[in-house]
């Protein structure tokens, strides 16, 4: 299945997942890369406080061309939730 981001670039669900996990890994330099998966909890496992989680907004806008609302990002609990938010924001390709 493929979807289009806001600039018309096409993404697969696996591609979105890989890109989001890469962003989260870059924001968690003290953690082993393999520890960060879709199931990783941002607050509980990585210890992100409620403001640190907002750091995902800019790289997602730059890399995946999707603009997430702060109120949505503030309530995201897992990497999987973040992947789903980005994927849901993309447009289905007929």
């Amino acid at each position: 299945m493929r979807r289009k981001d806001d600039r018309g670039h096409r993404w697969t669900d696996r591609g979105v997942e890989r890109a989001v996990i890469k962003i989260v890994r870059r924001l968690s330099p003290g953690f082993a890369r393999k520890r960060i998966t879709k199931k990783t909890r941002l607050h509980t496992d990585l210890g992100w406080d409620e403001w640190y989680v907002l750091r995902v907004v800019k790289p997602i806008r730059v890399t995946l061309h999707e603009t997430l609302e702060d109120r949505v990002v503030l309530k995201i609990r897992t990497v999987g939730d973040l992947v789903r938010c980005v994927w849901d924001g993309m447009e289905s390709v007929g």
Partner: protein
Amino acid sequence: MKAALAALLLAANAAAQEPSDLRRWELLVGHSYSSPRAMLQPATLTLEKVRGSPLYSVIDAGALLRGSLGSRMWLETGVRTRAGSARPRSQRVFGAMARAYRELDPVLLAVGAEYEADGGFDVQQTAGTAELTPLGGPPGLGTWVSPGVRLRWRPWIGVAAGGDVRPYARLSADWASGRVEAGVEGTAWLVHGSGRSFIKGDVSVGLGGGLFVTASGEVGRPPPRYERTGRMGLGLGFRLAPAQ
């Protein structure tokens, strides 16, 4: 049949986590609204009994209502109290505030207004405030240092302007291991050219259901009177923090 049921459950779960289903407003209850760190610290009720004297109480509690104002902005409004019969009236504090946040990656800006009064409402002050914190940066800023070192910290700088102008800086740090949490928060103000500071900390053990046994302490000169205070206590704590 099983596959269809599994697909239905999966779809229902996905729908339940749709961003459009997120509540626009949420209520948090904690130690104080003065900072996110203080909001995560449990609200406490401590009872003190010394032979020959009545039963004294110490209450530290705050509540915060938070909601969205737009894609990059949100609003908080709250009330707080530092009260109880163990504190002299001059050292009790009642406060209320409204604050709007604007995310400007790499920093977060908070602009608000706060009312504070002492226990007798003899000293009352209303001030506009502006605060800044970096979203991230050096190791431990806003996130655990590492999986083995569950310590994080966050600095704020700000200014309060009411009857006078008071620049201030705040540093908070917290640590967690299993059911045990500990935190400390220090604030320093420049009032009429001289410094005032106030530090409070706590160690809490979670009992489940948002309840904690909490040992807390404080020392320094908190607003609005900036009167010297210092105490330690052990009591019952409660926290309601949906986002965490």
